Structures are given as structure tokens and as C-alpha cells.
């Protein structure tokens, strides 16, 4: 057994155990910690697949930004009282185990019968390239700013929309604020009407 096999098995076992921790914990803060472990071990697995840039992004964007957002919301909302509530749909738990096995068997059967021999990495002079050139920042940028420029720009517009939308959704609406804004709008409209009449 090579070192890379042992590395993969260790990281995979860590990811699976942490994933089970995510779905079996009742308190969401423990689930969040489990998810962070999954994300970090997946980042290490990305490195073994020569995806260096994506591995860095996984740590920065996922484990950094998104999980901080999750932990922030968990802390903001009072989740202590939620733990004691009773499940209304207990049968889903018993449905979950056979579904788990069926889906797993299905995907494994497909994985087994597909030819999965990695192709040698290409290089400029035709010789076999070293293993770590595929996912460099240069290669990613070459693809992203030539062939896939439109999806990239669409993603930036999507993120802008998400920022505006989430601010609109999470805003607290106070009654007196709404009344104040309505009054100001009505006053402005009346002023404009008055000016139009003066002009006429």
C-alpha cells in the first residue's frame, strides 16, 4: 500500500465520520463544526487531485466565509429551545436507512462499471508533465477569462443580487419607520403636484 492510498483513506474516513456527525447531532452548532471538518478534509483531497487553487478557495470561501455565516446565524437565533421539540414525522427516520443503502448501491454499481484510468497530464513539449500543473491559478484564469467569461460574469451578477436580496429579506420592518416613509412619499408627491399646477 502506497502512501497516497493511506492518505486518501485517512482523509476519506475523517470526512465520512464528520459527515455522520453533521446529520446525527441535534444541536446545529455541532453540525456546523462537523461540516467544517468535512470541508477541510475535502480541501486536502482536492490537493491530491492537483486542484491547488480550488483547494485554497475551499478553505477561504467555504470553511471561512460560508461557515462563519452559518455559525453567526446559529448564534443569533435562539436554538436551545428547539432541541426538546418532538418530531412529527418519525417514519422518515426509518425510511432514511433503506434509502441510504439503495442510493449508495446504485451509485457504486455505476462507479464499478465505468472505465476510470487517468490520462497523463499534457505539457508543452509533449513529454509527461509533473503531476501538479493542472489546477494552478494560471490554468484556471486561462479558462475562466476566455471560454467561460460569460458564466463568470453571470456569477458576479448573481452574487450582487444575493447581497441585495438577503439585506431586503433579513431587514427588520418597524411600523413607525414604514409610516414615516409613507408620509414622506405622500408629501413629496403633493409637492410635485403643486409645482406642476404652478407651472401650468
Amino acid at each position: 500500500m502506497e502512501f497516497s492510498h493511506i492518505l486518501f483513506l485517512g482523509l476519506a474516513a475523517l470526512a465520512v465520520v464528520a459527515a455522520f456527525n453533521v446529520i446525527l447531532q441535534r444541536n446545529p452548532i455541532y453540525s456546523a463544526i462537523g461540516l467544517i471538518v468535512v470541508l477541510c478534509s475535502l480541501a486536502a483531497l482536492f490537493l491530491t487531485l492537483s486542484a491547488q487553487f480550488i483547494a485554497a478557495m475551499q478553505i477561504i470561501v467555504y470553511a471561512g466565509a460560508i461557515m462563519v455565516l452559518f455559525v453567526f446565524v446559529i448564534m443569533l437565533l435562539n436554538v436551545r429551545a428547539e432541541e426538546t421539540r418532538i418530531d412529527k414525522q418519525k417514519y422518515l427516520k426509518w425510511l432514511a436507512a433503506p434509502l441510504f443503502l439503495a442510493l449508495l448501491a446504485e451509485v457504486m454499481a455505476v462507479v464499478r462499471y465505468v472505465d476510470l484510468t487517468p490520462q497523463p497530464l499534457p505539457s508543452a513539449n509533449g513529454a509527461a508533465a509533473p503531476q501538479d500543473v493542472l489546477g494552478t491559478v494560471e490554468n484556471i484564469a486561462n479558462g475562466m477569462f476566455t471560454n467561460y467569461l460569460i458564466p463568470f460574469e453571470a456569477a458576479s451578477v448573481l452574487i450582487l443580487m444575493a447581497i441585495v436580496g438577503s439585506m431586503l429579506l433579513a431587514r427588520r420592518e418597524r411600523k413607525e419607520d414604514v409610516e414615516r416613509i409613507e408620509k414622506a412619499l405622500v408629501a413629496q408627491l403633493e409637492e410635485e403636484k403643486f409645482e406642476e399646477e404652478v407651472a401650468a
Partner: protein
Amino acid sequence: MVPLSWYLALSAVLFTIGVVGVLIQRNVISLFMCVELMLNAVNLSLIAFSRLHNDVTGQLFVFIVMAVAAAEAAVGLAIIIALFRSRETLNVDEADLLKL
């Protein structure tokens, strides 16, 4: 070199765990984290196939998926906050109407 089918098998296992989590969890934040788990399992598949074909396109897809996941997390958590303000609960069984 680790066989690529191992990576795909791990991806399948993680995705299935995410699906089961959506079925057995009732806390809406935990449900959201299970969805993130599934997204990550698919990301692992995409990167494994990118290595198989020696093409960087799969990694670009993963980048776009990450951007969409960030947007989804922001909007989803905002919806969760709005839901909690109006219902005082995080249980998805309690939130069974489309209006707030």
C-alpha cells in the same frame, strides 16, 4: 496513484449522507448544512473527473458552484432569520405555509 473510482465512491457516500440528513433532520439550519454537504460531494466528483480528463473545465465548474453556494447561503440564512422572526421556531414542520 489512488484509483479515481475511490474518489467517486467517497463522493457518492458523502452525497448519500447529505440526502439522509435532509430526511432525518428537522432543524432548518441543519437541513441547510446537509444541502452544503451534497454540493461538496458533487464538487469532489467534478474535480475527480477534471483530473481524469486532464481538463481544467471541471475545476471552473466547481468555482461557479462555490459562488452559487455562497449566494444560496446568504439568501437562505436571510430567509431563515425572517422565518424565525415571524414564527419563533426553526422546525420545518411548523413552517408549512407559503406566506410568512
